[in-house]
């Protein structure tokens, strides 16, 4: 018998000894970051970056597969006892020696998770992790000329890229309200001093919002550069339009933190989560994912912006509205909906 088969048998025996629990339920008590456990991480430190941003140093569990510069990770944090999942860009380089990873979080107004991480998170706390993901990454072959266009916390995935390797010719335009709001400002200025980066800071409080049509004044050769842009939807929409107009759309890579246009429908209705046996009233603007979570239903979730399909759930009855397009989907056998971008369009039954 092979050792794998033997181990399999031993594990079965252990399961028989611990039923209805699993051996891992006991192992989790002592070693939550071990190989084979659900992927978790431990917060080891929280370093303030600006008045409302902080870098969280995380020691990931043994199952962590490592990331590519520019990717994000979904983390599950218990805030006031409730587990909330959010996605944050990884800001540490891929070759960090101690195996830790960092995310950098900017507290947004009313943001439950971001405020918790920036202001209240304590070293030693366990958090839930997903494997890193995202295609806002550097290509295998290094482009000769690079342009980073960022605003606010949109700098975070780009910082992961900047820290990960050196380029011959990198230009960055970064927008923030004031100089003291620029996350990683000292490190960026060090790169500039070393001649590794050309940086243009746009301070929107004094300079006004960046006018994308006048980008050429700041970066004359922008159209020749492979560009990564990350920031608020307004900036990215304008950039996509601008790059398309000049016929260089394929050089522009964007990363959005929030879903696009939200179409609020009227109506809403009574939502039944039949597997859990809960029924709640929902309006026509709240994603069913939020409605379910609020009602204590275990909802699968992912990017929360309609991209990853991690939240798809069968629609058993009724109709839902896609919040991005306003499109109505009606229940039929086999119909799956993305709960993160769908709201009730009348009474409906979600199979959770």
């Amino acid at each position, binding site marked *: 018998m092979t050792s794998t088969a033997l181990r399999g048998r031993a594990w079965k025996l252990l399961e028989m000894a611990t*039923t*209805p629990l699993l051996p891992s339920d006991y192992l989790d008590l002592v070693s939550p970051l071990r190989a084979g456990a659900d992927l978790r991480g431990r917060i080891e430190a929280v370093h303030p970056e600006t008045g409302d941003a902080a870098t969280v140093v995380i020691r990931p569990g043994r199952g962590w597969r490592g990331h590519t510069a520019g990717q994000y990770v979904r983390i599950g944090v218990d805030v006031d006892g409730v587990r909330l999942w959010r996605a944050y860009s990884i800001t540490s380089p891929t070759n960090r020696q101690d195996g830790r990873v960092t995310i950098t979080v900017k507290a947004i107004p009313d943001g439950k998770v971001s405020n918790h991480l920036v202001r209240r998170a304590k070293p030693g706390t366990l958090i839930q992790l997903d494997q890193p993901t995202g295609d806002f990454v550097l290509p295998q072959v290094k482009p000769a000329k690079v342009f980073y266009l960022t605003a606010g916390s949109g700098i975070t995935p780009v910082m992961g890229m900047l820290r990960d390797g050196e380029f011959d010719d990198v230009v960055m335009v970064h927008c923030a309200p004031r100089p003291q709001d620029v996350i990683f400002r000292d490190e960026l200025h060090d790169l500039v001093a070393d001649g590794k980066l050309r940086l243009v800071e746009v301070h929107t409080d004094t300079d006004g919002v960046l006018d994308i049509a006048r980008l050429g004044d700041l970066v004359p050769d922008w159209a020749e550069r492979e560009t990564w842009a990350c920031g608020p939807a307004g900036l990215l929409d304008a950039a996509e339009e601008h790059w398309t107009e000049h016929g260089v759309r394929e050089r522009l890579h964007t990363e959005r933190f929030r879903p696009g246009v939200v179409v609020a429908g009227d109506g809403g209705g009574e939502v039944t989560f039949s*597997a859990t046996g809960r029924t709640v009233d929902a309006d026509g603007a709240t994603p069913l994912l939020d409605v379910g979570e609020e009602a204590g239903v275990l909802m699968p979730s992912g990017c929360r912006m309609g991209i990853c399909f991690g939240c798809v759930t069968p629609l058993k009855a009724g109709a839902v509205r896609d919040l991005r397009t306003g499109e109505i989907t009606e229940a039929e056998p086999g119909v799956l909906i993305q709960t993160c971008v769908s709201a009730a369009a009348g009474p409906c039954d979600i199979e959770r």
Partner: protein
Amino acid sequence: MTAIDPTAHLTAEQIEELGRELDAIRDEVIADRGEKDAAYIRKVISAQRKLELVSRGVLLFSIFPPAWLLGTAGLSVAKIMDNMEIGHNVLHGQWDWMRDPKIHSTTWEWDHVSPSEQWKHSHNELHHTYTNVIGKDNDLGYGIMRVDEDQKWYPFHLGQPLWNFINACFFEYGIAAYDLELGKNLHKRRRKDPEFRARARAVGRKIRKQVLKDYVIHPLLSGPSFLNTLAATFTANLVRNLWSHSVIMCGHFPEGVQVFERRSIKGETRGQWYLRQMMGSANISGSKAMHFMTGNLSHQIEHHLFPDLPSNRYAEVAVKVRALFEKYELEYVTGPLPKQVASAWRKVFRLSLPNKRPEARTPDREQELVAA
């Protein structure tokens, strides 16, 4: 049921006002629910697992009497914690708000022969909705006993003190049979029902796993202590069964608890539903440790009013609920465990004999009861 309705002095408006006051108590807890509560249940779960692990470890040497005693006591407490403060309450959805898939009513499984899925249906949906409604709530005597004068007497009930004792010793099996509605489903016609057969198979699988663990695997692991460990796990299961049976008997059977006729719940308002829960449940008084070991079912009244509030909050809720009982001049049935258990047992003995039906009843009502 006493001939006099103890809620007769309340007007419809007062009952709805009572309902609103209870809603306010509930909202207050929900608004305040948070990190401390989450830490509480995680601590209890972690303590239960460590206690079970250590006790089972000690029982590997159960051939030595001190080890047997210590291990058996520890395992009994661990099993009681698993079923009462953890299992029962998690399966009620009391901790679903944490959104932790590991501590959630839809994923939890307990150290019990009735699969949690089936127990949730018969307990959460039937018993908690139709609390103490004759003919609707099978918890009223579990289908093998009369626990109210209004339940019809059959000669079978003569043996109910014995049935109750046997049920107490093998309570988890009694519950599994009850969740399967065996009494009803063993009729020839129903036995073949595929839905029933699937559920029966699920119970069979659960029993096999439980028995294998308690009576084969752990004794075998104990080597020379095989028989001692076998006796120890049997004892722990017995202790858990007797304890949970006693606690649960105190919830609805003691003297002073009201039962209701089917007709009375037609078109029931929220206030009336609350009132039925208040009058149909009884508490157990005692120390913090006592409340903990009963899974806070000692706060049965509060639990029935707010089945999905976290159990660690029932003690503080009880103070406010009791004040409402006083305000509305209702009887809050409570007492120490021995007194309540004795009261419930007295009823089991007394009602094993037929009684004269209380008077002042309409012919309509008679029919209802016969139909029930």
